[in-house]
């Protein structure tokens, strides 16, 4: 048995595969792109073909190149915003939950305010004040999106921290004189990892949505290619009306795929939160064929008579010892039927 067991359910593997694919695309996408995404030197409105895999735009740009180049900005913004927002929510949520009293009131008020403000209008307002250099910088945009995305995570982490802070191991750490910062970082935070990971995934998902929306309404620099600007240009050139599906469907599909991948990965985090959900890595099919339930139910221990334990089937005993082992277990069961138990 290895110390760290990765989730092996097919859902999680598919999700991780999809997300990994897009992360790789972020790195290599711009190099793979066959053409300059902004170059307008092709015939306009070409359908997908072998020379232009996803066709061309009304301006004669290669859509496949736009998609590949656009992956980078989209993913960078999403990851920057996801990581920063999660860091903010941990800091604020754990501090509020652990410190309690006045600090809690202040920090809770802050997160409530950010929860109550509608995220998108706030983003639009902040964004419209940005200088042009800021609008074209993925990191700046990511930071701004993170501002509107941390509050929900902070509320959840605050509640979790409050339930942890009175546990014996935290009280023991307080009594032996660990500093507050150390308790928050090393005693409490590791317990929040499952929640944190799932909050990170959903914040990334939110950030993709927010960035694409901003770009779609034209609030990011049109010089930076991302999937939102592709949709913006498609809309501006009436692609949906002209039935030029190859223009607006690919970015939409990519966004949906990443969302699905992240959500599938979240199932794996479920299994981490509750290790009992992990069923020794057996697939649903194997479990069904051996008469085991797909999900363990509390108070209903499964009965699987067909399963032979590994101690008898695969072992390092000599054949001599093995046969005597089998013999004695046979003898035991026959004596059991004759005697039916110890009386």
């Amino acid at each position, binding site marked *: *048995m290895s110390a760290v067991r990765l989730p092996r359910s097919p859902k999680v593997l598919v999700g991780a595969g999809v997300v990994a694919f897009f992360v790789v695309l972020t790195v290599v996408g711009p190099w793979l792109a066959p053409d300059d995404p902004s170059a307008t030197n092709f015939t306009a409105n070409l359908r997908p073909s072998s020379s232009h895999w996803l066709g061309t735009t009304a301006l004669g740009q290669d859509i496949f190149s736009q998609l590949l180049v656009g992956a980078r900005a989209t993913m960078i913004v999403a990851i920057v915003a996801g990581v920063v927002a999660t860091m903010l929510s941990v800091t604020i949520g754990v501090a509020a939950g652990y410190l309690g009293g006045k600090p809690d009131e202040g920090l809770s008020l802050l997160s409530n305010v950010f929860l109550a403000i509608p995220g998108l209008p706030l983003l639009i307002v902040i964004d419209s004040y940005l200088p042009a250099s800021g609008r074209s910088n993925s990191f700046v945009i990511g930071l701004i999106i993170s501002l509107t995305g941390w509050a929900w995570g902070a509320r959840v982490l605050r509640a979790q921290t409050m339930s942890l802070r009175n546990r014996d191991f935290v009280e023991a750490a307080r009594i032996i004189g660990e500093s507050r910062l150390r308790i928050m970082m090393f005693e409490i935070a590791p317990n929040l990892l499952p929640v944190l990971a799932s909050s990170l995934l959903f914040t990334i998902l939110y950030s993709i949505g927010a960035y694409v929306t901003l770009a779609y309404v034209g609030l990011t620099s049109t010089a930076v290619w991302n999937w939102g600007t592709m949709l913006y240009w498609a809309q501006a050139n009436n692609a949906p009306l002209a039935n030029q599906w190859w223009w607006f469907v690919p970015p939409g599909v990519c966004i949906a795929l990443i969302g699905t991948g992240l959500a599938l990965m979240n199932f794996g985090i479920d299994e981490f939160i509750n290790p*009992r959900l992990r*069923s*020794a*890595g*057996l697939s649903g099919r*194997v*479990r069904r064929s*051996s008469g*085991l339930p797909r999900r*363990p*139910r*509390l*108070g*209903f*221990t*499964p*009965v*699987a*008579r067909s*399963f*032979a*334990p*590994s*101690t*008898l089937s*695969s*072992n*390092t*005993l000599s054949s*001599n*010892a093995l046969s*005597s*082992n089998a013999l*004695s*277990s046979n*003898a*035991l*069961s026959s*004596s*059991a*039927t004759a*005697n*039916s*138990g*110890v*009386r």
Partner: protein
Amino acid sequence: MEETVTTDVVVTESDTVLDIEDFCVDYGWGASAVRAVNHVNLSVRRSRVLGVAGESGSGKSTLVYAATRLLRSPGVISGGRVTLTFDDPTSVDAKRRTVDLLTASQSDLREIRWSQVSIVLQSALNALNPVLRIGHEFDEVLKTHRPGMKKAQRRERAGELLALVGLNADRLARFPHELSGGQRQRIMIALALALDPQLVIMDEPTTALDVVTQREIVNELAQLRARFGFSMIFITHDLSLLVELADDIAVMYAGNVVEWAPAGDLYNTPRHPYTLGLLNSSPPLSGERRELVGITGSPPDMSQPIAGCSFHARCPFALEKCSSQVPELRVLDDSGRKVACWLHDTPAEVPVALRRRAGEVVDDHAPPHEEEALR
């Protein structure tokens, strides 16, 4: 209580409540499965107490939890038969019913649990809901299982149950944190008895308590058992405590029952080296002081196949064949006690410590008489 108190329960030898036959339990499935309970045969007689003893990790709790289908994932029952026999209060002629717990449906189990089989867990603090008053816990179970009872009747019954375990009825209005550990454990016992079950399982109910409280609770349990005639499975690692309460004791080691005997016999004249080791490592409650000897080594790694007797590596009397051949649990003499040990194959070579007769020990660590325990 409406029913008359019976102090003398008629017991016939074949009258068993819980019958465990050739029972196997694994943790995990397939290639990674670890066998935690290995072909165990045990039965609990009506109105008697079966003690299950052994070190931590010997499979005693796994055995009992799996037999009642309470074992959590990744536990899997991989073979055997468990039957529960009880008087069905719902049938007209109060016929005795036998249910196979391993094939029972979830609704059958739901009906049987608490009303026929109840359990007292080790940690009473975790078992009681901290935000509910004690009275609420009683009210809830009575409301569910005795729908005919009125609110005042339920309250009265809860008060009676508390009185049974020596607590005042005003405790019903308290929260769990307002009570001491002993009081909480008593409440757990009272709750377990709320529906007059025929079998009560005690999973180390006194381990977290001091010896004085422990003694009080064990005495109370013995009294309650004599009064209501329920059977009990008492799981503990404390053999000297078990002798006070149990009628029969099964000693478990590495998932196997290595010795089964009437309590007094097992305590005075242990026949398995492991039982002897367990007895020598705890002080006797009465009698002279003697040197305590621990068992060297630690329990085997169950994920590795064990050749021969599972205890041979720690056994001071191990023979050559102990490391290659598995001893089976066999009847030792006409008293019906059983032991799984090769030493008893050749009576002449049995070590002195394992062949003493009861008379030879001059009250060294004799248990109190059963009457005393029951009084």
